[in-house]
């Protein structure tokens, strides 16, 4: 979940109905959050104490990071994982990229009547397993059952609390020109896996979701680069393009990506070419984007590569002044194009 930071421009939400696009993580989602939800909740603490993917709350003088996320996925099980794992890892990751180590989660299950018990069992077991691997405890939760035909089988929401890491101060404000953009590994695996798993497109590939806790990446980054780590994000729905656009917007700077250096697995590339999709817009569930000071970038990458799963961590870009508040991709031949957020979910095309 992204709780937004400073947003000087007043966004107004004027749609008469909520539509699918509002949940896709792109521009429509942002308008919903910034234009309707945040204003009604009294705005955010503009003193800059809010974190992007988690909020910081002081309890008896101690800062606690808190975040929440809901998980809606079809099919519930897919190569590489299931909704249960996403629910644990997703919240652990939101805390991790906010510089906090998750301590405990609570989980809400909205279950569609008629769901086979074995399915629910499988998901709860998956959550227990993922929680153990992530070093976090699930301490409570709630269940509700809704009528058949709602809830796509099962919706899970997790809320997590964590303790902020001492040597991590992450905020878009700290990003400077010359800082490097680092990606932890190949992008697009999760989103394409889901697309193929739905079966509508009749495509087959050896692909798995990359769902996992990214805390090891974050810890390695922070240990290697300390205050050189300016900002991090886990690029979920909307992909790398969306996260970087949020950064560009929040900083007013330019995020310049070298297209050919972004790691993409062959099968993701093949599926994207076939369907007319851009890997930069596809969801990930086990990756980190980090902005790191130029003098610490190399050692940050080396540290991440030593973490299992981070072998393909790499510098993919640099922060510049111009063009302001934009994400730009430089092609291999030096040509540039702006990479925007999508409006809604990426759709396959034939034209």
């Amino acid at each position, binding site marked *: 979940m992204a709780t937004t930071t400073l947003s000087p421009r007043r966004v107004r939400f004027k749609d008469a109905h909520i539509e699918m696009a509002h949940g896709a993580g792109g521009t429509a989602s942002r308008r919903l959050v910034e234009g309707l939800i945040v204003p009604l909740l009294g705005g955010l603490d503009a003193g800059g104490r809010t974190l992007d993917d988690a909020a910081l709350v002081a309890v008896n003088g101690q800062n606690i990071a808190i975040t929440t996320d809901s998980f809606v996925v079809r099919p519930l099980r897919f190569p590489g994982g299931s909704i249960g794992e996403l629910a644990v890892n997703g919240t652990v990751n939101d805390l991790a990229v906010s510089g906090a180590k998750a301590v405990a989660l609570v989980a809400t299950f909205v279950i569609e009547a008629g769901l086979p018990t074995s399915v629910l069992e499988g998901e709860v077991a998956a959550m227990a397993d993922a929680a153990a691997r992530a070093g976090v405890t699930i301490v409570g939760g709630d269940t509700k059952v809704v009528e058949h035909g709602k809830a796509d089988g099962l919706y899970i929401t997790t809320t997590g609390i964590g303790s902020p890491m001492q040597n991590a101060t992450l905020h878009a404000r700290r990003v400077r020109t010359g800082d490097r953009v680092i990606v932890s590994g190949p992008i697009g695996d999760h989103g394409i896996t889901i697309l193929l798993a739905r079966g509508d*497109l009749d495509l087959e590939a050896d692909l798995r979701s990359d769902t996992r806790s990214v805390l090891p990446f974050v810890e390695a980054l922070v240990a290697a680069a300390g205050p050189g780590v300016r900002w991090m994000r886990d690029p979920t729905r909307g992909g790398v393009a969306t996260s970087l656009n949020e950064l560009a917007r929040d900083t007013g700077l330019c995020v310049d990506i070298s297209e050919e250096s972004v790691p993409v697995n062959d099968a993701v590339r*093949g599926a994207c070419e076939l369907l007319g999709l851009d890997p930069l817009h596809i969801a990930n569930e086990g990756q980190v984007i980090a902005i790191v000071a130029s003098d610490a970038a190399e050692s940050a990458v080396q540290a991440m590569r030593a973490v299992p799963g981070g072998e393909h961590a790499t510098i993919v870009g640099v922060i510049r*002044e111009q*063009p*302001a508040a934009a994400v*730009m991709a430089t092609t*291999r031949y030096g*040509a*540039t194009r702006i990479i925007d957020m999508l409006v809604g979910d990426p*759709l396959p095309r034939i034209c």
Partner: protein
Amino acid sequence: MKFVDEFREPEVIRRTAAEIRALADPTRVYRLMEVCGGHTHAIYRFGLKDLLPPNIELIHGPGCPVCVLPMGRIDDGLAMTEQGEVTLTAFGDMMRVPGTKGSPLQRKAQGMDVRIVYSPMDALKLAIGNPHKHVIFFAIGFETTAPSTAFTLLRARSLGVGNFSVFCNHVTIIPAIRAILDSPDMRLDGFIGPGHVSTVIGCRPYEWIAKDEHKPIVVSGFEPLDILQAIVMVLQQLRRGEARVENQYRRVVPWDGNIPALRAMAEVFELRPFFEWRGMGFISQSALRLRGEFAQWDAERRFDAPGIRVTDPKAAQCGEVLKGVLTPAQCKLFGNECTPERPVGALMVSSEGSCAAYFNYEHRKLAAAAAGSRAAL
């Protein structure tokens, strides 16, 4: 990826771009139209405009089947889906195109059974697997896609599938090019010809452009090197004062076209006397419909459709942009009332529409640069 990566090779691209700069006469402006929306998309995706000298203008043509589909036809397709247990299937490109009562995706959110398919055969399979529902396939596309629809209908007939029909909105490319050349505001020096349409129709159908209109046309592939090489070939012709049809995309396009595909089309389709193209008005003999023998698979004959002609708001200048008379930025609504998030015209909805491509790639770059230079002052 073989047959893709080679044609994206940076060093060869740089060299070809240099050749273009060497061939282009600095004292003249070249206006080249790339007809096909796929070329528009590729040009922006690979940033090819940055590699061209400023005196070569690439003008986007009307080869975007989603862009030229009148809103009324979307209303018709959706209206058909309301008549009984009907499932509407369509390519992803169609999903966000607004009709007067919402786009297919919006209607899906309201409970209509609308599904994305990658192939018309998938729609037929869906019908076969769901005998209690009627499946309509919303067919769009130029001659590239029409043979696949034709083949699917032949299959439906041979299997005797009773719960499948096609809502046919296929259009043909030659009348569109004629309409461009007939337009008095249009000055063009040459064409980058549609590569994939030509795998079906071949290169002969373009001969009148060279012979009668005296303009070079080079049928081009879609990788950066294809497009750049096609531009080299057009410039070479212009330099020599020639006007010929050439095939840059030889590895894929047969000069005589794809005979089995053309045969399937001829068996299943006939030309409509006229058809409305959004932004361009009625063009005769420019679209396909199912022949009488296929009536039971023709959604227009099986279902009622309002058939209402919906005109675009007067301020929307889709037609002029489609014909290349105006650039997207010159349309009064561009970037304000009409954005990819809130599209007024189809050129902004389709990812290969000139306005969407321009907005996403060029406009933001220029606006950001302008904002940046203002800030720097």
